[in-house]
């Protein structure tokens, strides 16, 4: 009997641990957000976070979008040719990029770049007692380190997504015009004609949610970091894994909410 119940017990314990972890992250996030409206505020830390999360992520997000847009154009052209629908390339590239690939791939790239660096930075601060030092200097670490990063990520991720969308569409345009023989004017006209504002807006909203997830995971796991280099390493890994999985799960839920008939 124990042989049968032991695996079930294991699954139960894992489920409970996962739920407890989600609860702790949610409480941490709620506390951090509550500091948005309670002074003192730290504008310098916010601006630094905007630069670190937004500006310095532009190259990686831009390159990801450029290659994805190009590959998407090739795939749709080759798939579409099976039923003589090559002409849908511009509109499908645009819709695919702005609704799905722009926000998701952008979010994942920012998760890899930003969640890891936030977790490593805050984790090292914890290990070297800098977080305790903040408290003794009458500074709430949540307010000083976490809230500015979350706010910055929520505000800059939509911009990154919008830039990524444009670059991705441009990637499709480059391949479409220079390799697949599309007329430049027709390509652009088809892109614009079939794209609705809700396609763009829904992707940008996704970007804001993904930004929240990235900063929250980076900060939470950094604050929970264990001792030593190994502790910081584990925190960084947990932050990237957590952010990536949460982004994909949130993407499914948001897509279901926005586009289910």
């Amino acid at each position, binding site marked *: 009997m124990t042989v049968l119940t032991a695996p079930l017990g294991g699954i139960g314990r894992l489920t409970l641990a996962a739920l407890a972890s989600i609860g702790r992250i949610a409480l941490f996030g709620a506390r951090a957000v509550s500091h948005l409206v309670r002074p*003192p505020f*730290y504008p310098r830390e916010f601006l630094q976070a905007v630069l670190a999360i937004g500006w310095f992520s532009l190259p990686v997000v831009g390159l990801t979008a450029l290659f994805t847009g190009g590959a998407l154009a090739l795939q749709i052209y080759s798939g579409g040719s099976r039923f003589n629908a090559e002409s849908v390339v511009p509109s499908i590239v645009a819709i695919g990029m702005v609704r799905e690939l722009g926000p998701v791939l952008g979010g994942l790239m920012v998760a890899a770049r930003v969640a890891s660096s936030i977790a490593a930075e805050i984790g090292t*601060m914890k290990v*070297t*007692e*800098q977080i*305790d*030092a903040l*408290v*003794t*200097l*009458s*500074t709430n670490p949540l307010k000083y380190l976490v809230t500015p990063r979350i706010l910055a990520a929520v505000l800059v991720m939509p911009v990154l997504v919008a830039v990524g969308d444009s670059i991705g569409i441009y990637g499709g345009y480059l391949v479409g015009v220079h390799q697949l023989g599309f007329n430049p004017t027709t390509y652009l006209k088809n892109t614009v004609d079939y794209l609705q504002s809700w396609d763009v807006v829904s992707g940008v909203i996704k970007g804001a949610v993904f930004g929240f997830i990235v900063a929250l995971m980076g900060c939470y796991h950094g604050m929970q970091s264990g001792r030593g280099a190994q502790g910081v390493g584990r925190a960084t890994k947990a932050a990237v894994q957590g952010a990536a999985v949460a982004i994909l799960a949130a993407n499914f839920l948001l897509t279901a909410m926005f586009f289910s008939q």
Partner: protein
Amino acid sequence: MIQLQGVHKAFGRNKVLRGVDLTVPTGESMVIIGGSGTGKSVTLKCVLGLVTPDAGRITLDGQDVTRADRDAFLARFGMLFQGGALFDSLSVWQNVAFRLLRGHAKRPKAEAREIAIEKLRRVGLKPEVADLFPAELSGGMQKRVGLARAIAAEPEIIFFDEPTTGLDPIMAGVINELIREIVVEMGATAMTITHDMTSVRAIADKVAMLHDGVIKWTGPVAGMDQSGDPYLDQFIHGRAEGPIAAVR
């Protein structure tokens, strides 16, 4: 006056503090000694509210520290951390003036910088150091910057966590002397944790020996050598044999 009564703290099954009773009178320098892992740091962190005790009471001038207004309470403290705990992303002067640059005690930047440079001078560092970053400093200089940060806002109570760990004997002597001078000149209440006996003799008015989660002995530094307490005797003479079992 800082008073700890029956303070208990456990981390999981590890009972670190098992009823700590200790009184630190205002204006006195109390040094807590004890082996590694005996709960000295946890005791300090309990007073500061960085760690919440499981049981017991900690008061500052008769007021329960858990019920005090956090900001006003912490504004009375300064702390020198073991590794300095300087903020890597900020320059030396911004570290020293941290409390003066933000929050409720905020002052104009130029004034904060001037105070920071003055405090750096007080701990024996030249103004040129002000614009360097912590990573560019030696261990001894980092300790001094940490000390300057601890005294920048003129606190009434200063905590020193292992102030001489990792320093060469001469630099350790310099830091001990600085701590003693600053505590006397500011009239501050000081609480230091260390296992460096040279430090104890240089800094302390009173000494408390922490072992097995309780204070085994407390008294004036002058009475330390004639205490007759076997735990204290073993510790101050660094004997391998005695009631304190060494982990080999």
